[in-house]
């Protein structure tokens, strides 16, 4: 039941004092695009175009200022490029650092209520599909085409950012996965990770560790993370191209079996991810390795500084012999809300393109905070050839740069959170032996299908 649009002339806005506020909920009717009305802007969206714009591209005039939201290290990274940008392009970019969960809540509130959004905001690839689906993000495909930088990014990154021919965010970083291990612990127990090719081999090697020491951590609150990483490594897709649920595919079953084997073999610890116990175990070497996105190096360095030099990294083991060893974990983008007025959006885009679309700036952020660029052209830089002190001089950067372009695309959708829940719930049953791997993935797939109204593949 669609309500008629505002074209129907007989309906007018009642200009009563009390109702005026309500009537103006998303801009006055008749003035057209709400983004240009008072309702849509932010405090920053002054619409003031008098700023010394030195933009090289055409289009609407740029607002003087724009605000960009990000969290933690990411926000700090963006801040690095703030000054060079302002020197070169003028304008006034404010980077606002907000806690990750908080930023998401805030940004989503602005999306859903159609007002209050900043010029641009960070968006994780995992969230991208559902955020795009709200219709609250701005299609930047024209600007992207104009800038001609689309092909410079790793292709696997674009999937969740696109919908119906529109593009809604600019990729920033990716998380090519590596297996980080404690060199000293492995050496002590005669394990050579560099010789490991598959997970099965890795498990066998892990059995050499004594009781109380684990090869890796398999946290019961984060099965989906490992599952997704491995599934993607196999080229698996959670949904088929026509939207059917596909998490009970053979590839998914393969992954489930490996996870089950990891648990049953006794080589896996079970500590909640990111808990202090989790960190401590890596610090003490009771958990000897960690498979995660390249960005974990920066975190480990910050948290466990006194273990510097004791770490090494390999490409993640393959699921099967000769299989791919490239996959991804994590990664962000920068997006602009639709409600942001054109001038401010233009300013925000200008900054985004300047920061994320340039090798130089991406490398600055990589070197300072380990943000691994999604900008493929950056990989040529010898910054990736520098040995990492934390990894005992290993040139892991090059390894990841090799992995990055090989990462298979992955179909994130609005129902990704459902997949997460289903996998965690049923894999827990699988781990306790209540379900076989096959039963677990079937149950998970059925749950997702039931709750999203999708078909099973």
């Amino acid at each position, binding site marked *: *039941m669609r*309500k*008629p*649009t*505002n074209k129907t002339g*007989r*309906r*007018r*806005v*009642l200009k009563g004092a009390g*109702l005026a506020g*309500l*009537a*103006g*909920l*998303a*801009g006055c*009717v008749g003035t057209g*695009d*709400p983004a240009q009305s008072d309702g849509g802007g932010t405090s920053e969206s002054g619409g003031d175009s008098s700023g010394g714009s030195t933009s090289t591209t055409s289009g609407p005039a740029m607002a003087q200022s724009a605000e960009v939201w990000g969290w933690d290290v990411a926000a700090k990274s963006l801040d690095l490029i703030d000054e060079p940008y302002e020197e070169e392009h003028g304008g006034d970019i404010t980077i606002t650092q907000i806690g990750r969960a908080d930023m998401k*809540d805030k940004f*989503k*509130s602005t*999306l*859903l*209520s*159609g007002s209050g959004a900043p010029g641009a905001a960070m968006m994780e690839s995992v969230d991208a599909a*559902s955020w795009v*689906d*709200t*219709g*609250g993000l701005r299609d930047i495909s024209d600007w992207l085409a104009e800038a001609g930088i689309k092909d410079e990014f790793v292709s696997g990154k674009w999937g969740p950012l696109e919908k119906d021919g529109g593009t809604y965010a600019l990729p920033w970083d990716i998380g090519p996965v590596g297996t980080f291990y404690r060199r000293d612990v492995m050496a002590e127990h005669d394990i050579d990770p560099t010789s490991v090719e598959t997970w099965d081999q890795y498990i066998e090697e892990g059995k050499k560790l004594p009781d109380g020491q684990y090869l890796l951590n398999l*946290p*019961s*609150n984060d099965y989906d993370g490992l599952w997704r990483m491995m599934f993607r490594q196999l080229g698996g897709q959670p949904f088929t191209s026509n939207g059917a649920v596909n998490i009970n595919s053979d590839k998914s079953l393969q992954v489930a079996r490996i996870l089950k084997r990891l648990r049953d073999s006794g080589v896996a610890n079970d*500590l*909640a*991810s990111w*808990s*202090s*116990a989790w960190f401590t175990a890596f610090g003490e070497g009771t958990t000897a390795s960690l498979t995660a996105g390249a960005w974990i190096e920066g975190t480990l360095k910050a948290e466990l500084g006194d273990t510097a030099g004791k770490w090494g990294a390999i490409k993640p083991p393959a699921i099967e012999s000769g299989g791919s060893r490239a996959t991804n974990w994590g990664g962000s983008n920068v997006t602009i809300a*639709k*409600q942001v007025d054109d001038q401010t959006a233009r300013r925000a885009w200008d900054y985004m393109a300047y920061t994320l679309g340039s090798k130089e700036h991406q490398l600055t952020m990589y070197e300072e905070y380990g943000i691994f660029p999604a900008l493929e052209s950056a990989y040529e830089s010898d910054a990736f050839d520098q040995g990492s002190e934390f990894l005992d001089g290993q040139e892991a950067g090059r390894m990841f740069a090799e992995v990055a372009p090989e990462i298979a695309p992955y179909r994130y959708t*609005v129902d990704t*959170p*459902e997949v997460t*829940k289903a996998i*965690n*719930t049923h894999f*827990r049953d699988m781990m306790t032996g209540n379900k076989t791997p096959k039963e677990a993935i079937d149950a998970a797939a059925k*749950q997702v299908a039931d*709750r999203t109204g999708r078909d099973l593949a």
Partner: protein
Amino acid sequence: MAAPTSNEPLSDPTVRDRARFFRQALSRRLPGLGESGVGYVFLLPTFLLFTLFLGFPILYTFYLSFFRFEGVSDETLLWIDLPGFEFQLTRIAELEFVGLQNYTAMFTDTLFLQASFNTLFILLVQVPLMVGLALLFAVALNASFVKFRGVFRTVLALPVSANLVAYSTVFLLLMQESGLVNYLLTSVGLPAIPWLSSSFWSRMTIVGAVTWRWTGYNMIILLAGLQNIPQQLYEAAEIDGASRIEKFRYVTVPQLRPVLLFVFVTSTIGTFKLFSEPVIINSGGAPLDSTITIVQYIYQTAFIDFRLGYASALTYVLIFVVSLLSAAQLRIGGSADA
């Protein structure tokens, strides 16, 4: 007549007097309101704030509960076109009318049922536990022989001053596998408890946290109620040969019934509204969904799944259920000893 009869002023009016005279003159000129008029005037500010800030969200939520949210939009949302009254609200969301589907869907929504179960579980354990403890503390502190009653009262009520987010985080730390609580348990020879990682114990952790925080507060309310019980009733019971327990059973509890009821109803409502505690404590690695509460689930439905319509319907069901429950509590509690 002894009062001064002279009309001459004894003194010059002071500034305050002048102000008073001005107020009097003003109030004399104002038209009188009927009794009902006065009532409305006193209610006016409340009424305005309610209509503006809660009326709109409540109605909007109700409206949304019959739709499926399809995305953000800027088309017309709602229009009223009566003779002499035209009003149009611009659509902020792309909505598809689904009738009562949102309301029927929840019966087969396993996660909703899980959340309801969790909330009820917490409710059934936490409210009686907390009210029971609060009552025992109140009775103990009402006993005349207890010294330093003020100190005990303050100490017991102190947790209420802890900030919600802060204390939830602190509980998260205390209850960790290797946290202080397990340290204390193991150091006296008891087994460590998986406070955060088992479904049962993670719910109990939430129960514990909420109980810790609110027992003292409720104790104070009950204590105030106890102090209103006439001492003669206890003396009469004493003469009738009632034991301590009997006095508690036949004097304290019936006399305290209205206060207990108040505490029960407000605690029940409070438990239904649990949000921050489970969100924060759940992040400690509890099995997924094992501590999710109804409000938390509705929040996720709206904010993570963007199913605004469904979330709105859930909200209304929650409100309906809590209203029923409160009314039932009031009826049960009130009728037994009217």
